[in-house]
């Protein structure tokens, strides 16, 4: 240590004083050195600065070499602690018990979590003794209606992530908020004298009205300061499109449930983008009951998405072709735009006819990444069809400041390069990682004199900053956000910040010298100022709003908009076609913000079923052209190298690469996963690289994929029919099966009490994966890592099987969630030698983990292959913070035992306890499984089959109801409602569609 320059030189020791101190003190006193015993202030200072040099290196993940060193050190230090008593902990009962707290029973609180674009997801968070463990959708919230997306489900892991920034760092060394605040106060003094000149605030998109007000306050106090927002997957294109169409960046809100015909232009509106969770529900509501009519969806998109796979007609098209299609559609429908030609005229004709026939009940939706022109055209078409006010309405932008983020960022970088920026406060985001490559943000950042970083992780950006201030997780925050329709959604903290995280508004308060107030009060006072005057009993109203998670009736009012005459002119020329590389946010980790979330990394991507990697997605023909197969490494535009993954149904000539990978400094999970496609990005063309060179390097890489086989092999697994066929034969899914009666020598099980059953409506399922993550969170399911996934050992209790049907260039894509079928004649039960898997008296096939010795016979004999085995100790038993995440109602499994879907038996048992206490039966709808609760489109039904009035009984009585592999005599309790599509007869001749039905032929 002597080589370290900043160590205080210890003063000479006063041994007499030490003796005196030790004699005085009572109780066990242990001291490590004479200096400590002396209680010298220098020693205290030394303790504070104990880890000085090299600490920054340590805040990285522990490398293997480092680990060995540490282990050695630990052995040495173990001697120090071995004679130390643990600090006494006292268990004291509450004198006054907190309201509603029953030990062992969770409480639920409403809150909100920001998604991409800062748009709120309304959630209910389950809290066990103040420990948030599970996120559900808020049924009262317009953006949720009880459903959530996969990212919202996974946010709970983000909260407990041990790799989050844990302490204030100053130039890589541990510091404290106190010192940071002192520096911020100094900064304030400087700024006051210069009116904030040279100060810049860079944030992600802000929709929070109270944070927005604080920022505006800051800008008013320091008029020379500037605020820039940047998000790599932000809504610049949507705003620009709205500007072209209406002259102002209004936000479109769709009423998908009102639309009979929908055309999605490169849009995955059912799964990604603001309002997707709500749209999925509204869309499914028009398909749940084919007998009473169905909507029809046309999708034109470069790469298959869950929305595309839910479409009745899907047209693979490059982004130029999508725009061409939009132009032609607009021209044909009389939107007053110039005509254009398209490749697939029949598709266009059918779509045009369908839209024209459904004026006011049709909808054209442009995708988040579609160019502004497509957005403008979509608005124009909707206007021409008279859809505005019916299937779509416009509201004031949900963002506090709907600025053009790309332009703002470019200007900021210019100023940074020119040395005009003295202080940059980067709150959230990760610009060093995710800004377009041509801006060279990192280099520009180094020219800023003071770089302050407020972030959830000490990430790539933090590495370049002087100060790294840990940012609180949304579940640790008070606040407000706007939902997709403008509804003000309130955030309340579920737990005190685990690490020293603070919110942006707290940091701003220091700069504004308004510190010391509770953020809870700041938000409340903001709203008192906004609506207090018009709201009687504001305090009560506020209390109720916090309880509900939203301010009732705060959705933005519809705005009257008029198409601009200049629209046609401002569209510009049709884009050049040709081979292109499209950049897209990853369906799982999005722009990279979830890169350290192991659940999302291991979640199979909806179409490719890849885990733990991004890939260069290309169509079979494109791959053939480049001589590539799955895993071949290709170099794109001489900038990035990544493995190819062939996606049937992708547009030829369009290569798609997902953003969000190749993180270098995020945590143990996300570091080094995949490759960063941001290197391909330019500020002029953030989503598309035209004419990029594709070079096959000749290398290859192993990809971890959870489903190797995409064909149904002609088996009746996903059963489907067109609406016409369904009308003619409503029991198309089972009519063949009914011919073969299965007999059994054994008596059937008898169920006196409950008899649980589950059904999945394949017509509603979009394959969005929310259920998989919900199940993982609810049931403490471990992640296994890329290597183990590659060996076929992923642990998801509910998997979504994806099948391709038809041509390889444009196949129909089906999604089928598969969980334990809870068979009446379960093949697993009979073969277990130790009775670890048994049939319950309520029909559940239950696993007794403690009894399982792990012969795996049950898994072998399961025809559905839904059983999962702990080949290693997959559950993380060591990371303390993850202990807090676990659902205390579900066993954390050890090595060597089998596990599988339990129909969320812990939820059944909670309902049973409540019901028995009230001496009644469990009511229909009282037990909601985790997958069912999360499903945005409401595709999963669960309930008591013995209750003849229950919804599940009605659902299972549907003519579409069928079970998998019934010819085996397993009698599954999980069943499916067969898929019915609503094709346009112009495009789908009757002869082509052959219904898939059950039974052997």
């Amino acid at each position, binding site marked *: 240590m002597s080589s370290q320059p900043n160590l205080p030189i210890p003063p000479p020791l006063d041994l007499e004083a030490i003796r005196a101190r030790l004699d005085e003190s009572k109780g066990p006193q242990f001291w490590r050195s004479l200096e400590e015993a002396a209680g010298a202030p220098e020693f205290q200072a030394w303790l504070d600065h104990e880890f000085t040099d090299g600490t920054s290196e340590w805040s990285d993940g522990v490398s293997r070499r480092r680990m060995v060193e540490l282990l050695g050190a630990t052995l040495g230090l173990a001697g120090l602690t071995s004679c130390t008593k643990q600090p006494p902990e006292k268990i004291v009962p509450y004198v006054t018990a907190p309201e509603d707290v029953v030990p062992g029973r969770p409480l639920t609180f409403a809150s909100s979590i920001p998604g991409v674009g800062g748009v709120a997801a309304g959630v209910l968070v389950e809290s066990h003794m103040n420990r948030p463990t599970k996120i559900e959708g808020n049924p009262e919230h317009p953006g949720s209606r009880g459903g959530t997306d996969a990212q919202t489900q996974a946010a709970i892991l983000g909260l407990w992530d041990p790799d989050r920034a844990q302490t204030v760092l100053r130039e890589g060394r541990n510091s404290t908020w106190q010192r940071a605040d002192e520096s911020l106060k100094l900064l304030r003094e400087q700024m006051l004298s210069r009116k904030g000149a040279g100060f810049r605030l860079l944030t992600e998109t802000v929709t929070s009205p109270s944070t927005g007000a604080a920022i505006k306050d800051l800008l008013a106090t320091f008029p020379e300061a500037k605020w820039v927002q940047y998000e790599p997957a932000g809504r610049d294109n949507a705003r620009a499109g709205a500007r072209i169409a209406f002259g102002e960046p209004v936000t479109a809100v769709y009423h998908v449930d009102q639309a009979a015909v929908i055309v999605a232009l490169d849009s995955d509106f059912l799964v990604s983008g603001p309002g997707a969770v709500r749209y999925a529900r509204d869309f499914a509501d028009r398909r749940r009951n084919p007998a009473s009519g169905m909507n029809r969806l046309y999708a034109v998109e470069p790469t298959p998405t869950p929305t595309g796979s839910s479409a009745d007609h899907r047209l693979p098209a490059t982004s130029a072709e999508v725009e061409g299609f939009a132009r032609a559609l607009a021209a044909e429908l009389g939107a007053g735009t110039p005509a254009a030609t398209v490749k697939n005229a029949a598709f266009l004709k059918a779509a045009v006819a369908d839209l024209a026939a459904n004026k006011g009940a049709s909808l054209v939706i442009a995708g988040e990444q579609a160019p502004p022109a497509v957005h403008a055209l979509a608005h124009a078409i909707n206007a021409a069809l008279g859809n505005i006010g019916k299937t779509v309405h416009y509201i004031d932008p949900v963002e506090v400041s709907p600025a053009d983020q790309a332009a703002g960022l470019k200007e900021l970088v210019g100023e940074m390069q020119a040395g005009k920026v003295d202080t940059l406060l980067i709150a959230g985001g990760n610009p060093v990682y995710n800004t377009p490559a041509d801006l060279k943000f990192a280099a520009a950042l180094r020219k800023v004199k003071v770089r302050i970083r407020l972030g959830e992780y000490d990430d790539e950006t933090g590495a370049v900053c002087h100060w790294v201030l840990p940012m609180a997780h949304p579940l640790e925050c008070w606040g407000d956000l706007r939902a997709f329709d403008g509804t003000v959604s309130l955030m309340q903290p579920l737990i005190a910040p685990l690490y020293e995280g603070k919110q942006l508004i707290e940091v701003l308060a220091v700069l504004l010298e308004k510190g010391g107030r509770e953020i809870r009060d700041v938000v409340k006072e903001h709203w008192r100022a906004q609506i207090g005057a018009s709201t009687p009993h504001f305090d009560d109203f506020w209390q109720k709003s916090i309880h509900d998670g939203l301010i009732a009736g705060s959705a933005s009012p519809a705005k009257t908009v008029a198409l601009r005459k200049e629209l046609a002119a401002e569209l510009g020329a049709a884009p050049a076609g040709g081979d292109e590389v499209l950049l897209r946010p990853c369906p799982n980790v999005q722009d990279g913000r979830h890169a350290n979330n192991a659940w999302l990394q291991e979640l199979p991507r909806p179409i490719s079923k890849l885990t733990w990697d991004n890939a260069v997605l290309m169509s079979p023909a494109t791959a053939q052209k480049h001589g590539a197969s799955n895993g071949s490494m290709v170099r794109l535009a001489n900038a990035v190298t990544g493995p190819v993954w062939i996606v049937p149904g992708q547009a030829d000539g369009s290569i798609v690469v997902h953003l969000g990978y190749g993180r270098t400094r995020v945590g143990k999970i996300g570091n080094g996963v995949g490759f960063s496609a941001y290197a391909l990005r330019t500020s002029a063309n953030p989503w598309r690289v035209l004419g990029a060179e594709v070079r096959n390097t000749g290398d290859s890489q192993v990809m971890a994929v959870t*489903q*190797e*086989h*995409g*064909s*149904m*092999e*002609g*088996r009746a*697994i996903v059963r489907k029919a067109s609406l016409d066929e369904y009308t003619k034969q409503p029991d198309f899914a089972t009519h063949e099966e009914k011919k073969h009666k299965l007999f059994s020598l054994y008596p059937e099980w008898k169920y006196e009490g409950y008899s649980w059953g589950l059904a999945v409506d394949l017509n509603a399922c979009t394959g969005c994966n929310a259920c998989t993550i919900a199940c993982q969170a609810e049931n403490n399911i471990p992640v296994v890592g890329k290597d*183990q996934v590659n*060996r*076929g*050992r*992923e642990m998801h209790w509910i*998997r979504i*099987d*994806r*099948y391709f049907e038809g041509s390889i260039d444009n196949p129909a894509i089906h999604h*089928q969630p*598969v969980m334990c079928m809870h068979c009446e004649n379960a*093949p697993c039960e*009979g*073969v*277990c*030698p*130790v*009775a670890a898997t048994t049939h319950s008296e309520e029909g559940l096939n239950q696993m007794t983990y403690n*009894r*399982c*010795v*792990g*012969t*795996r*016979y049950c*898994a*072998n*004999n399961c*025809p*559905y*292959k839904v*059983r*999962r*085995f*702990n*080949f*290693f*100790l997959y559950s993380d038993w060591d990371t303390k913070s993850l202990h807090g995440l676990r659902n205390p109602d579900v066993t954390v499994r050890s*090595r*060597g*035992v*089998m596990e599988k879907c339990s129909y969320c038996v812990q939820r059944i048992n909670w309902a049973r306890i409540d019901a028995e206490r009230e001496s009644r039966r469990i009511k229909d709808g009282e037990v909601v499984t985790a997958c069912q609760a999360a499903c945005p489109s409401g595709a999963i039904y669960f309930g008591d089959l013995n209750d003849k009035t229950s919804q599940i009984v009605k659902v299972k009585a549907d003519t579409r109801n069928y079970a*998998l*592999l019934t010819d*085996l005599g397993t009698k599954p309790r999980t069943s499916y409602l067969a898929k019915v599509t609503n094709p346009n007869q112009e495009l789908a001749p009757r002869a082509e569609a052959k219904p898939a039905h059950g039974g*052997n*032929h």
Partner: protein
Amino acid sequence: MAAHDHSLGPVLPPVKIEHADVVLVQRHSNTTVTDKIAGVVLWSPTPKQWFVIIAIAFMVLQLLPFSLGNLVVQGIGLWGINSPVGWGFDIINFVWWIGIGHAGTLISAVLLLFRQEWRMAIARFAEAMTIFAVMCAGLYPVFHTGRPWLAYWLLPYPNTMALWPQPRSPLVWDVFAVSTYATVSILFWYVGLIPDLATMRDRAKGFGKYIYGFLALGWRGSAKHWHRYETASLLLAGLSTPLVLSVHSIVSFDFATGLIPGWHTTVFPPYFVAGAVFAGFAMVLTLAIPVRKWYGLEDFITDRHLENMAKVMFATGMIVCYGYFLEVFMAWYSGNEYEWAMLMNRVKGPYAAMYWALWICNGLSIQILWFKWARRSTTVLFIVSQFVSVGMWLERFVIIPMSIHRDFIPASWGMYYPTVFDWGTFIGSMGFFTFLMFLFIRGLPMISMFEIRTLVKRPAEANH
């Protein structure tokens, strides 16, 4: 006997006898039989091959504690098994070893009841092989469990949990079948050893005398002893005979009671039993041919023995092929799409090479045994035996991983690749087997002396 000079070594020089169609070359007296066989252990110089083989076996055996030790510490994820292939080398090797054991029981029990004299020379040897093969087999069910320290839960023992094994599971039947088999085999082998152990006791010098003496249980060769011996031997033969059929039938139930295409087959029990005898005789030949040569035991293990073993191997091999044919036929005849897909997966799936290799090893290679010269050629028999051993291993590969890797739901299909730990356990168990086998050869009379002595024709008989 006391005057006999042991240092002279074998009494008779080894003589190659062409086409010996006898079960004992009749140039022996009771004394020379005993001297020759006991001499292998007690005074003849040990052939250098023994040292080479046991050294290699001992080294290879080290793979076993290495692989299994790692397995217990880290988890069975070290193996290549996964979802959907929950059983790989573990159960393949279990069935393979159990099958190999069957020849011993068949020879010692069934042939005893049928009074087949030719069994006498090879029974002891084959029984030892049975026991060691069952020991190897027994490793797998224990270590293949996710939590091997709890594998004893498969045993029915009174416990505070008041839980018994689940009697519907074929794995529980396995526990009973294999443990019974191991117990009866060991008893039968040991009882058969007692008279010879007494002979060894009488001839051994030094400390060995006490060991053989202890093991001989005070055998003095009285008429009463012989009477009791004959009764015990007959009873044990009677007990063992049904085991020959039951053990592998029950092992086959592990698959036949499952509903996986490729497993769910009624033909399995007889076809597994035939396969076991087939594999077992191949292993007896594999071991007997070199050992006979190295120790110069051609007088006792004659070409007649080899031919008889070849005939059994051939017959059971043809039954096995009939089983393969039936699987193909039933896949077609059942009209079941999953059965047909299973067959097509064997014929042209990713592991098709294994299936065709199986036909070559077990179907094609044995066709040479139609010819008498081949059945009497040690070279041909040795090579065919290797083919059969490999073929029977492939059969289990075809049945176990190849059936479950592609079953009903195509989305859950996967592949199975063994890891170094799979190979380590397998090769280690082969080392273990060979090591024990050669220890046995060195320490115990590998041919039943007293039984061979009954084959020695007395001069009076010879003159007839």
